[in-house]
């Protein structure tokens, strides 16, 4: 509906008029999680059901006129509460239905759409007090959050008009038509925005450095190569609100006087690639992107580049090499990309979430942004809350929020292996993925920000937050991350290539029971050397999981090396089978099956296993009909 000479004010008004003419709007979450649980099947069922009741519907407000008394069935990107998906919202009633199935469509239409009643069984029910909650204004998971980047996560991602109607592209227009590049840099510096990709470098300063590099050609790169295992906020933003990323890039382009941009997206995120491509196409169609930005006569174009699966490409210089068609290996800095970046030109590289925060700052101003967060880390941060916690999903909180609020209030508490809440089961939170560290129970009251986390040997990283319960073995967690970084090390510099390999070998020794106390000292020494001597961020931060677990969970390492015991019972090599005397009937079957003769006993009396002979093959456990063999 917006045409070539777009006036975003008119476009917003027209769209809002359409929305106000609707009776109800049903928003179905079409994020990866909800789709996997069948949200699109529900959508089809719902449309069928609405038609059966002779109700008028709209499914695409971008193209269609509103029909009389119409109901609008729209999709959205990830709404964050993945655990409870598929999620269905009914507006303007403010109802959020959870775990909705196609079979529920008839009841939703009959009760909620036709009569305005609430279907209680589909509401979110708290596992703590059993109470039902109507929508995100009262569900604790949402209520405790403060959403800026994710604020528009319920809009139709494929509709540029809806983004504009939510005051989208206002900031870009202001930057291009009413501000000088210098002023845009100043505004960002005043806001104190720091890069959300891991390092926390001030965005305004990065832009100013690039502005200062004189060159006719400069580039903006949006880093969407979200490779940290356990983090998916960038994917959700690109899928759910792709225009906010494009707008952020446009503001950056104005600030540094760039004329071309690249969005580098992981190939593992096909939907994000598709949505960003479509958003660029729409923005070009309405004349927001292209040859003449907001009538200034200046061009800005954005291309999409699909990554090919290399974690190290999250590193700026490696990402540039990858766009240039080379092996994605990092280069020593300086020169920084601000001086010598893509094709040798000055280049700004910002992470997806950073760029998606920019429109808010442009619209609301630096002071408003600084009201949130802590003095050194203003604003909000999205975290991917996963692991052993009742409510998993995507959350956004101001910096300075404590872990306790995140895990116990938003997350709803720690769970055991079966998913039941068990408050005393908390062991650790791993924050920042393979570059981050593990926090302990004592740090639950720590206000999270860039500096406080660095102080305890962790880092914000990309914002993965994995909660772990007592049944998690910390040396095994360190081994898991080291396996990942060792695999992803590009091999260019020796400390990272060899160091991660050696650290992994030492960690394997520890979890296999082949280590001594000296192993721990050697591991620590190696970790410190790798941290000091590696070329890029990947290597420099690779030892973090090891160092932080050694620091906070040393007892557990010592148990492994001194007593060859895994307190969490996760390390198979250290498992020691045991026969429970009260369950053993003395049938001797296990003893007959044991290939090394480690089991002895008298018939009809409990048998015993000789640990020195046992090879932990598990034959006894498989043979026992009474479940008397444990620990293997």
């Amino acid at each position, binding site marked *: 509906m917006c045409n070539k000479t777009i006036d975003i004010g008119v476009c917003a008004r027209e769209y809002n008029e359409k929305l106000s003419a609707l009776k109800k709007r049903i928003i179905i979450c079409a994020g990866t999680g909800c789709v*996997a649980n069948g949200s699109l099947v529900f959508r089809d069922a719902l449309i069928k059901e609405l038609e059966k009741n002779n109700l008028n519907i709209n499914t695409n407000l971008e193209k269609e006129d509103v029909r009389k008394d119409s109901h609008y069935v729209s999709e959205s990107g990830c709404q964050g509460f993945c655990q409870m998906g598929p999620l269905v919202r009914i507006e303007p009633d403010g109802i959020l239905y959870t775990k909705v199935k196609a079979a529920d469509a008839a009841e939703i239409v009959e009760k909620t759409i036709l009569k305005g009643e609430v279907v209680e069984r589909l509401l979110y029910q708290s596992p703590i007090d059993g109470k039902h909650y109507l929508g995100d204004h009262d569900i604790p998971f949402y209520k405790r959050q403060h959403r800026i980047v994710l604020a528009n996560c319920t809009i139709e991602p494929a509709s540029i008009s809806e983004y504009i109607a939510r005051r989208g592209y206002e900031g870009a227009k202001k930057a291009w038509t009413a501000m000088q590049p210098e002023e845009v840099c100043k505004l960002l510096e005043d806001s104190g925005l720091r890069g959300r990709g891991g390092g926390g470098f001030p965005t305004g300063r990065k832009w100013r450095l690039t502005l200062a590099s004189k060159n006719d050609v400069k580039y903006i790169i949006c880093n969407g190569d979200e490779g*940290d*295992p356990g983090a998916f906020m960038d994917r959700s933003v690109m899928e759910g609100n792709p225009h906010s990323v494009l707008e952020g890039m446009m503001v950056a382009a104005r600030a540094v006087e760039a004329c071309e941009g690249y969005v580098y997206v992981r190939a*593992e995120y096909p939907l994000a690639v598709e949505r960003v491509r479509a958003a660029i196409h729409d923005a070009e169609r309405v004349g927001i992107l292209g040859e003449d930005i907001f009538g200034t006569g200046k061009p800005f174009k954005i291309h999409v580049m*699909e*990554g090919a699966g290399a*974690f190290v490409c999250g590193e700026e210089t490696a990402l540039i090499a990858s766009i240039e068609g080379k092996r994605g290996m990092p280069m020593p800095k300086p020169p920084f990309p601000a001086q010598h970046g893509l094709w040798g030109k000055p280049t700004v590289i910002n992470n997806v979430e950073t760029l998606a925060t920019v429109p808010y700052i442009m619209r609301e101003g630096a002071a408003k942004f600084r009201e949130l967060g802590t003095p050194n880390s203003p604003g909000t941060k999205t975290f*991917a809350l996963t692991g052993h916690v009742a409510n998993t999903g995507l959350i956004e909180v101001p910096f300075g929020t404590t872990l306790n609020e995140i895990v116990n209030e938003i997350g709803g508490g720690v769970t055991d292996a079966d998913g039941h809440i068990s408050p005393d089961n908390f062991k650790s939170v791993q924050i920042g993925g393979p570059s981050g560290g593990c926090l302990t129970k004592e740090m639950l009251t720590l206000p999270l920000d860039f500096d406080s986390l660095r102080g305890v040997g962790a880092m914000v990283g990309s914002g993965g937050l994995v909660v772990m319960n007592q049944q998690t073995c910390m040396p095994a967690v360190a081994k898991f991350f080291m396996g990942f970084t060792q695999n992803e090390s590009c091999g260019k510099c020796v400390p990272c290539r060899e160091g991660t390999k050696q650290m992994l070998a030492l960690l394997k020794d520890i979890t296999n029971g082949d280590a001594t106390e000296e192993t721990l000292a050697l591991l620590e020494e190696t970790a410190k050397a790798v941290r000091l001597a590696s070329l890029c961020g990947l290597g420099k931060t690779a030892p973090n999981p090891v160092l932080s677990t050694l620091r906070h969970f040393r007892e557990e390492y010592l148990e492994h090396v001194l007593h060859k015991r895994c307190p969490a019972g996760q390390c198979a090599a250290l498992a020691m089978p045991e026969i429970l005397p009260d369950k053993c009937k003395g049938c001797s079957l296990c003893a007959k099956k044991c290939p090394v003769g480690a089991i002895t006993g008298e018939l009809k009396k409990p048998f015993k296993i000789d640990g020195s002979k046992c090879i932990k093959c598990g034959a006894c456990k498989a043979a026992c009909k009474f479940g008397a063999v444990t620990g293997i």
Partner: protein
Amino acid sequence: MDKAKVAAEMADRMKGAEEVLKANNYDKTRLVPILQGVQEKYRWLSQDLLSYVARAVGLPPARVYGVATFYAHFTLKPKGKHIIKLCDGTACHVKGSTKLLDAIRNKLGIKEGEDTSRDGLFTVDTVSCLGACGLAPVLVVDTEVHGQVKPDQVEAILNAVLEKDKNVTK
């Protein structure tokens, strides 16, 4: 053998690669998208294809081989008909993805160090994170995402894929 015949056969085999190269203007800076496009058509990158791409864009074959081996997305071995991607990200890992992998390997009879079943029907890849951590543990068969999978559900999921194949061939 007749040289002309060999050349014709070669040209025929490279038709798909040629299309991709053309769409990318034979631009060597677009090597990654070119290899992605070629792999999509041929399912894997053979030595023939890599050499052909190298010559077409004017790069030494070693450079192209270097890029193809660097990125996890590229495969230099033929893959099975169906690709199972098992997520082994942090969230999936702590929720038991290793046990899922064992269950899949057991069911398909894939030994340690191999990734494709004998009958060529399935390839199992572990990936570092699919970004669906809320659904951990996750596995994706071709394009279908399965969340919160338990090892005893693996058999049913794989059987459903085979069942679908049967219906298609009917």
